[in-house]
């Protein structure tokens, strides 16, 4: 244990995802020894992000405005929605350039251990988007792991009654992994070879 401020910083850093106690300590001492100006930039970047960046009111993607640039872009295909778990997955799919529709960010996957059920995800918002009948296909691009598959099964069952085409990315993605770790080519192929769920 260190004195007051240092320990507080270590504790805060340790709460970040992927940072264990040792890394937290290393980061804290890096910050302590770093140039004060550089650290101010970091603080400003964090503050700005928290003040300015919101979530798109339509798709849930990160956005500096009420709606994100993809939802505002008139060239995007309004008949297709790609459903992903997180905003970072939107970036992963965008990199493939295989998809010209719009997105819907769920905010996670069904995960009873973590206390996440359908109500904790942005599923009602997805249903609302379907109400005007414009959407023809929904591509489910949740992670290729158990929780992602369970979420896909859940969505497919629910959407079956609505009469929209539901597809799932083709297998071939590294099983058990995160969508964001799939390389562009593999992910692009998974889009092309998507299969019907309903």
């Amino acid at each position: 244990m260190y004195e007051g401020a240092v320990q507080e910083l270590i504790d805060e850093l340790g709460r970040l995802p992927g940072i264990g106690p040792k890394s937290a300590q290393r980061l804290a001492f890096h910050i302590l020894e770093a140039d004060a100006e550089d650290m101010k930039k970091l603080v400003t970047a964090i503050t700005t992000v928290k003040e300015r960046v919101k979530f798109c009111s339509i798709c849930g993607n990160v956005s500096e405005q009420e709606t994100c640039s993809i939802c505002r872009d008139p060239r995007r295909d309004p008949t297709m929605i790609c459903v992903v778990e997180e905003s970072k997955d939107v970036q992963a799919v965008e990199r493939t350039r295989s998809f010209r529709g719009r997105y819907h960010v769920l905010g996670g996957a069904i995960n009873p251990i973590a206390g996440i059920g359908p109500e904790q995800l942005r599923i009602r918002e997805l249903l609302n988007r379907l109400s005007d009948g414009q959407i023809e296909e929904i591509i489910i691009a949740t992670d290729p792991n158990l929780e992602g598959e369970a979420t896909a099964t859940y969505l497919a069952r629910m959407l079956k009654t609505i009469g929209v085409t539901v597809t799932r990315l083709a297998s071939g993605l590294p099983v058990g992994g995160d969508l964001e770790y799939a390389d562009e080519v593999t992910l692009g192929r998974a889009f092309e070879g998507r299969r019907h769920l309903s």
Partner: protein
Amino acid sequence: MYVEHLSLTDFRSYAQVDVELGPGVTVLVGSNGLGKTNLVEAIGYLATLGSHRVSSDVPLLRFGTEQAMIRAMIVRGAQKTLLEVEINSGRANRGRINRANPVRARELLGICRTVLFAPEDLALVKSDPSHRRRFLDDLLVSLLPRHAATRSDFERVLKQRNALLKSARAGKFSSGHEATLEVWDQHMAAAGAQLLRARLDLVERLRPHVARAYAELTEGPKEARIDYRSTLSGPLTDDGNAEGATAGEAADLAGLSVPELTERYLVAFAAARRRELERGISLVGPHRDELDLILGGAPARGFASHGETWSMALSLRLGSYYVFLEDAPAEGQSPVLILDDVFAELDVQRRERLAGIVAGAEQVLVTAAVEADIPDKLDGRRIAVVPGGIDEGQR
């Protein structure tokens, strides 16, 4: 196959130890508590990625350290493979094969095959079904490494489904949860069917070998038989006993494919729904199944004498050995046999017979506190385990 060299770093009591081993019989002798079992436990770990003594990895890390390393050179016929496994606290374990880039520890499975006999084996017969399920699954994964995924996929689905049922019992069950339960049913049925199919096939393979081993170990007229009992044939209690009169044998499942078993599970889940919601756990699935051990028509558990219980336990291990031999009959492919402190537990007749069966194996590693407990048939190299390490000077 045989282990030619074993090197441990921060594993159990050893900060660092190196042991040269070779084909044939090697006896590790030393007083109790000096670290004989720790050495052979490490070799067993390379084969199953688990200890035969504890269910978690934590006790394997030397007190106060965060990483243990097991290194072994495995010789299979003309092929030498260096296996390394890094056991980490709080992080995923990693493996390396022939100094290549680190991979998931799971990739090491199937390279080193061992059959380990230990005093703990008595629990295979006497204790609850979880010990017998673990026995089957460890053997399965060692024979067919791809089933490591079958096993862990099922365990993960089970945890999720149990978490959901538990929250249901706590009264937090919303309509959303109910729809998700059906989703978890689907995934658990599919994963459970894979595991069940693999276990059923394994028991078919194992059955004649266990019967043969039992006959070789004993003189009496009793026959040993193993049967798989699935919760699909009727619910079992936590203790492996049939609840009510519905328990049948798994025979009716023998010819069913994975998709057919999946369907069976879905039907069984629906039938168990109310009770599962009441108790907040999954009651149907391979995690509640039992491997029945039968001696002369009666269940070994609870009916067998102490000596018979030992013979049954040894027969499960010897039967595994025979399955491995059948699976890879080529020279240099037979598993390493490890007999950890078992002779002290056995009467003279069982000692002699066991020794006679294992003596011809390619590599036999024996541990004993007292040299006199080792049957003469197992004459071989002696390694003295002394405080803090080993002394190979003794022959």
